């Protein structure tokens, strides 16, 4: 239906998408790449890492928005790569790198946004709080064994009281989806309880992709 098609302009290029799609989706459909760190096609977008910010002009107003959570609207003009956006992105990645200096995924992002020298002291965190594991555990697996605790810079992903969860089924989805490789299977097993597992389950390792998965 024509009414459901929305036309927008991204980086001067006419793009069209379906009502309800986000700026990020439409951009990627048209071959325009925007870097992301907390986005995953299978999960509800969270808009939390803020690496995917773009400049969105609608009417007279221009604002910096996270493209992964901004729905397209007729007549929207989007700029994904202005000097301002580049500098904001560099700063955001620098902040993440300051939290987690050893994570490959952040180091790659730093290279991509052109961050040369980090102005902040770097720490060796192993989790940059993208929240993909939390979303996957509740949205895909449907058990909600892990969640966020505390707030602000002290936020962390844990199973409640930092002891093994009684609902974790040990499926390893969190480990598979974790872009930082923070959730390794060893950690999952530590957190796994066997109280509710229905039958015997073994863990296999795929020799192609090296990911673990469970058999029935």
């Amino acid at each position, binding site marked *: 239906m024509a009414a459901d098609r929305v036309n927008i302009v991204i980086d001067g290029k006419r793009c069209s998408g379906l009502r309800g799609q986000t700026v990020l989706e439409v951009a990627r459909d048209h071959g325009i790449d925007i870097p992301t760190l907390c986005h995953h096609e299978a999960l509800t977008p969270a808009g939390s890492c803020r690496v995917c910010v773009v400049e969105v002009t609608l009417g007279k107003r221009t604002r910096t928005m996270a493209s992964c959570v901004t729905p397209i609207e007729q007549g929207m003009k989007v700029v994904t790569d202005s000097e301002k956006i580049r500098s904001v992105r560099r700063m955001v990645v620098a902040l993440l790198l300051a939290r987690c200096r050893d994570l490959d995924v952040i180091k790659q992002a730093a290279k991509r946004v052109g961050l040369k020298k980090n102005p902040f002291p770097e720490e060796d965190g192993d989790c940059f709080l993208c929240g993909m594991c*939390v979303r996957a555990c*509740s949205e895909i697996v449907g058990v*909600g*064994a*892990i*969640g*966020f*605790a*505390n*707030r602000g810079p002290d936020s962390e992903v*844990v*199973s*409640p*009281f930092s002891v093994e*969860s*009684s*609902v974790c089924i040990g499926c390893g989805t969190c480990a598979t989806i974790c872009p930082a490789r923070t959730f390794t299977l060893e950690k999952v097993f530590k957190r796994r*309880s*066997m*109280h509710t*597992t229905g*039958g*015997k*389950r073994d863990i296999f390792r795929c020799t192609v992709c090296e990911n673990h998965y469970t058999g029935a």
Partner: protein
Amino acid sequence: MAVLSVLVLETRKKHRDRLRGKLGAAGYEVRLAESGPALISEVAAARPHAVVLDIDLPGGDGLHVLKAVHDAAPDLPIIVEAGEPTVEEAVEVMRRGAFNYISKRSPVETLLHVLSQALERERMEAETKEKAREHKIRTFDDPASLAVVDRILARHHYSDSMLISYMQDVQQELRYLPQEALRFIARRLNVSLPRVYGIATFYKSFSLKPRGKYVIQVCMGTACHVRGGGRILESFERELGVPAGETTYDERFSLESVRCVGCCGLAPVFIINGKFYGNMTQEQVPRILAKYE
């Protein structure tokens, strides 16, 4: 601190010797039991701090021994080791009261780690109970406490949108949010435990630790800040010997900094159990504290 003793029942000699060596090296006093019945009587005679039990006893006796030891000493952490671990067995073992279930093939460090966890938990539980006895706080040994929680949930028909309100009421009654209460709330309302735990750690007014008899809230609002509220807080810290956010060892005072209590006209301000003190100076702090001794 006294040496912690670990009682080990292990059928395979090689593994037994390895355990004795490694645990001994880690500073534990290692005692060995020869058989299931020997283990049970040994626990009764001289209670160790923890037990490591080989589940593969001859005749499939492991599970019986586990249950007997657990029934005799419910608080005693029992770590079960298995040669051929299976999920079914793990379920069975945990149901019978084991602290943890690990593979014999896992490195001894795993055992040491689990052991230290077990002992730490036991120590903390003992400490909490001791303090609770001293100050007559209801603990969750007391079934009345869960009934209190359930009554609060019933007030608004177990509706999950009232979750925060329930937790406030529970904290009001029990002075903090005990782990068991939160688990109970999650179960009873059929909401995920991470959500309950997330709320308990997100909002500042919740405490997972028992708070003191007197709660001192020092206002750190802007007006109090520019009129010296920070110095008032520091003098409380000096007087009580605890930093903000902590409770004194005797659980008499909890010291908290709060962000503006809306009494800026009287800055700097603090509140002790709901009573406001305005226009304060550092000099007055010890005098006012003395009223609450």
